[in-house]
């Protein structure tokens, strides 16, 4: 096992990884930007290194500075968390070349799965259904239009290298498609240094369900069940839960099998997530693979009892995985709310500022992952995630009751948060019955 790990991230996920390391007796090095200087979670690390100014490009996205920090602190391995460099195959490659273990899949697998067109081909080769659309990047507008007519509008224009909803646009006719192709290409070029885009059919009223994969370096691959992430606003997940209330055991069997098949095909190692869309008629479609830890991994941990970050560390250190698919038990239901520093009354505008009072909920069935506290200042430079409120109960009904009371207790003063919105959301419309899809939040916001 590693003796010293550098955590190339910040906020709640840096603390999450640090907790796993501490419990395994691994020393930790945290890097931080000047904007994060003084944050309390930094005090829990064995060593900290300031790597630059607030702007991510100057710090958390700055590969040379992070590698230098790893070198001067003599770490064995780097955990990238999620976001920032977590899916940068170049970063993983530089780690490999510097003889520092990158805690994640191999760079070549990241490169393969990070390119959506290629990932799609892999799924097709393995007989996993994909969304009707272009199999290759579309550099030619005429071919795009032809394909759009074939699969039917609306169609989605996506950046081949995108992720997390960035660079996605929906076209309803030829004119908008032409415009969007042009805009999407230039945006993708700016954001990902790769202007390739492709189009696919929009699956309306679908659910977003993803499967957690864990794999070691000895060919052992298991899935840890699925997560339903259909509660999204503008492609940003707000609430995730497991098991998905919208699928039956037969569908669960299909998607978990498909996920393991894809992971096996690319000889995947470490933790990863394979995302699917599931439509009303019971069709499922592979969308993409996230070759990293997900924000919402805790709900899977709650129902399986598996600590995914510890498994990541073990797998990256070359240990043989102790998990066996048949022995993994799924107990109860777990739901996560992302508590963001945003004002729901002002179109979810991010609102940085000083937290004057912070009292998280507690008691049975409640887990809170947060780096925030009374006196913490939310900075404008990074994403607005403040805390993840996770509940775990024997049944979904009990989980929602527990979630509601926990949201009632959760006190954050001094800034706006999404807590009141979550309280409304989980009692709205079809949500309590589990009857919702990707349009749920938009409908709630438009019609109230």
């Amino acid at each position, binding site marked *: 096992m590693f003796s010293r790990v550098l955590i190339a991230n910040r906020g709640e996920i840096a603390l999450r990884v640090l907790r796993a390391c501490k419990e395994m007796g691994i020393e930790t090095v945290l890097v931080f930007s000047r904007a994060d200087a003084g944050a309390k979670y930094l005090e829990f690390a064995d060593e900290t290194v300031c790597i630059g100014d607030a702007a991510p490009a100057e710090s958390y996205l700055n590969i040379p500075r992070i590698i230098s920090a790893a070198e001067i602190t003599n770490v064995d391995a780097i955990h990238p968390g999620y976001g920032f460099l977590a899916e940068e195959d170049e970063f993983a490659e530089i780690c490999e070349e510097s003889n520092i273990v990158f805690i994640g899949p191999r760079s070549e697998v990241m490169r393969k799965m990070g390119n959506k067109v290629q990932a799609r081909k892999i799924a097709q080769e393995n007989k996993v259904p994909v969304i009707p659309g272009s199999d290759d990047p579309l550099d030619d507008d005429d071919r795009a239009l032809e394909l759009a007519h074939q699969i039917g509008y609306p169609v989605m224009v996506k950046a081949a290298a995108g992720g997390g909803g960035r660079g996605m646009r929906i076209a309803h006719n030829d004119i908008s498609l032409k415009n969007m192709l042009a805009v999407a290409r230039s945006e993708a070029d700016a954001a990902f240094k790769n202007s390739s885009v492709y189009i696919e059919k929009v699956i309306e009223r679908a659910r977003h369900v993803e499967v957690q994969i864990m794999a070691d370096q000895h060919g052992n691959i298991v899935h840890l069940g699925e997560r339903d992430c259909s509660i999204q606003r503008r492609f940003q997940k707000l609430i995730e839960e497991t098991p998905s209330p919208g699928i039956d055991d037969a569908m669960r069997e299909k998607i978990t099998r498909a996920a393991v098949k894809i992971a096996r095909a690319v000889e995947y190692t470490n933790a990863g997530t394979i995302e699917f869309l599931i439509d009303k008629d019971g069709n499922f479609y592979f969308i993409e693979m996230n070759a990293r830890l997900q924000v919402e991994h805790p709900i899977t941990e709650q129902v399986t009892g598996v600590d995914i970050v510890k498994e990541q560390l073990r797998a990256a250190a070359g240990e043989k995985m102790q998990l066996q698919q048949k022995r993994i038990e799924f107990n109860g239901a777990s739901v996560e709310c992302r508590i963001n520093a945003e004002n729901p009354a002002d179109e979810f505008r991010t609102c940085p500022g000083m937290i004057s009072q912070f009292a998280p909920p507690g008691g049975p069935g409640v887990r809170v992952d947060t780096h925030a506290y009374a006196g913490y200042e939310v900075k404008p430079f990074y994403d607005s995630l403040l805390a993840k409120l996770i509940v775990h109960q024997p049944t979904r009904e009990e989980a929602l009751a527990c979630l509601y009371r926990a949201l009632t207790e959760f006190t954050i*003063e001094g800034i706006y948060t999404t807590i009141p919105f979550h309280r409304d959301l989980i009692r709205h419309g079809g949500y309590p019955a589990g009857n919702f899809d990707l349009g749920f939040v938009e409908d709630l916001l438009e*019609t109230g």
Partner: protein
Amino acid sequence: MDPAQRVREFIEIMTEHDLAELEVEEPELRVRIRKNVPMQMPFMGVAPAQVQQPPGYYAALAPGNGTQEAPPAKEDNLIEITSPMVGTFYRAANPGAEPYVSIGSELGADTVVCIIEAMKVMNEIKAQVEGTIVEILVDDMEPVEFGQVLYLVEPAE
């Protein structure tokens, strides 16, 4: 210059510059002003939203339910008669009977002002002060908690 006018001028200066105290001695005038600065709590809470409301869910988020009625300020010279127990407040000995006391009633220390029923026992509550009732704060048959103010009394001189 008129001294009052002078003081006003000094207060203006204090407000302008957020001063707590000002002391000025002139040949014909000596002034010392100290502002009553309240201690501020560090928890400020969330300011009410001051945004244009979009339709739908957003509209339901309009502010307004955060305001709380402040309890009526206790006037300095009045005495409170509080409940010494938890129970049900009765203004009269029996339903339909005359209330023990009303606004304007003169009280001696032993005047019974109400009954509080607790565990089926009727407890006569005595004024324990001398004076005149100026306000009744609890309705007949209303539950009261320990220490709850029942009457305000203007004390006898």
